[in-house]
């Protein structure tokens, strides 16, 4: 029984791979069926070119109008709300069954939280560890946002793929960094820092501060969007056989985790520089 199923699996795999080789080509499709009483396998040009597909995939957003003036990108907002719901549920489940001897969920939450708590204490010092909740939240949110695109449900795109989401996160980080700097150092010292080392450098310093937030958000956006485009194009080349799994593992899990970590780490180090 076992041998038979193994053999069947191998045969199916070989058929799939042959199918893939036969139909290889960017704008082509494989047709198998009966045409005028004859059995045919042929390679036809597909109706949608790869460029149309990419445009459809990355610009086809559902826009909802509110009060006639505000426009809301519903297809991105939906996924963000789903992520929020997931995080709230997770937090509630962990908080509900809090024990001295931790359960499985509590161990996961405590692991991540302890890691970031140690990181914050290492970077900005013991006294300012009230930063930990923000850093922890921003990491978990971006992380879930990045890896949610791996779940194969139609319309389940990464929210960070749209520029508005990373730009909002970057702006929020900038505001928090400067607010903390003013709170810790006082207005006078904070303003004086812009004229360092000489007052002539004022515009350059201001541009540098703005560029921090922009580079932060563009890095996240570019990485996720580039990964998504590469997944789409290579999947089309290989007719969606086997390769997309590995690509999703690399671009979804690895790059997503690294970029979420890098975002939080950079926000943390900007804060450490600003309040020093």
């Amino acid at each position: 029984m076992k041998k038979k199923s193994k053999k069947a699996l191998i045969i199916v795999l070989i058929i799939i791979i042959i199918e893939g080789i036969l139909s290889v080509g960017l704008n082509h499709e494989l047709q198998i069926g009966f045409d005028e009483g004859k059995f045919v396998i042929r390679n036809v040009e597909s109706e949608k070119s790869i460029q149309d597909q990419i445009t459809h995939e990355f610009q086809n957003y559902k826009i909802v109008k509110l009060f006639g003036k505000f426009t809301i990108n519903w297809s991105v907002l939906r996924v963000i709300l789903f992520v929020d719901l997931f995080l709230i549920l997770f937090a509630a489940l962990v908080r509900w069954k809090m024990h001295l001897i931790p359960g499985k969920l509590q161990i996961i939450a405590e692991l991540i939280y302890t890691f970031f708590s140690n990181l914050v204490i290492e970077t900005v010092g013991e006294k300012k560890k009230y930063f930990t909740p923000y850093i922890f939240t921003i990491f978990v949110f971006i992380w879930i946002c990045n890896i949610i695109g791996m779940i194969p449900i139609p319309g389940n795109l990464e929210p960070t793929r749209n520029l508005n989401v990373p730009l909002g996160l970057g702006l929020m980080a900038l505001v928090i960094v400067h607010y903390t700097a003013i709170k810790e150092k006082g207005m006078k010292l904070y303003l004086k820092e812009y004229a360092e080392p000489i007052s002539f450098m004022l515009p350059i310093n201001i541009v540098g501060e703005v560029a921090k937030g922009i580079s932060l958000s563009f890095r996240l956006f570019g990485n996720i969007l580039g990964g998504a485009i590469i997944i789409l194009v290579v999947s089309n080349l290989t007719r969606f056989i086997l390769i997309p799994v590995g690509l999703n593992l690399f671009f979804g899990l690895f790059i997503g985790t690294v970029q979420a970590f890098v975002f939080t780490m950079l926000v943390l180090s900007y804060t450490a520089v600003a309040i020093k």
Partner: protein
Amino acid sequence: MESEIIRAAALLGAGICMGFGAIGPGIGEGFTAGKACEGIARSPENAGLLTRTMLVGQAVSESTGIYSLVISLLLIFAV
């Protein structure tokens, strides 16, 4: 005719932009990884800290490549 020339120039520009933009991050990230390897070989007990710093540094030096990616995407889809 004219629009076709513009389109061709935009596609050519996108390819050149991505190709040249990938040189800098490639060299920078490889250099960082090599130095981190040396550091870990010298003091294996600091491996976690070194890896963390390496990842952050690589992500920062990667951003120029990401800018060129954004520019080439603009050239392909917006022009």
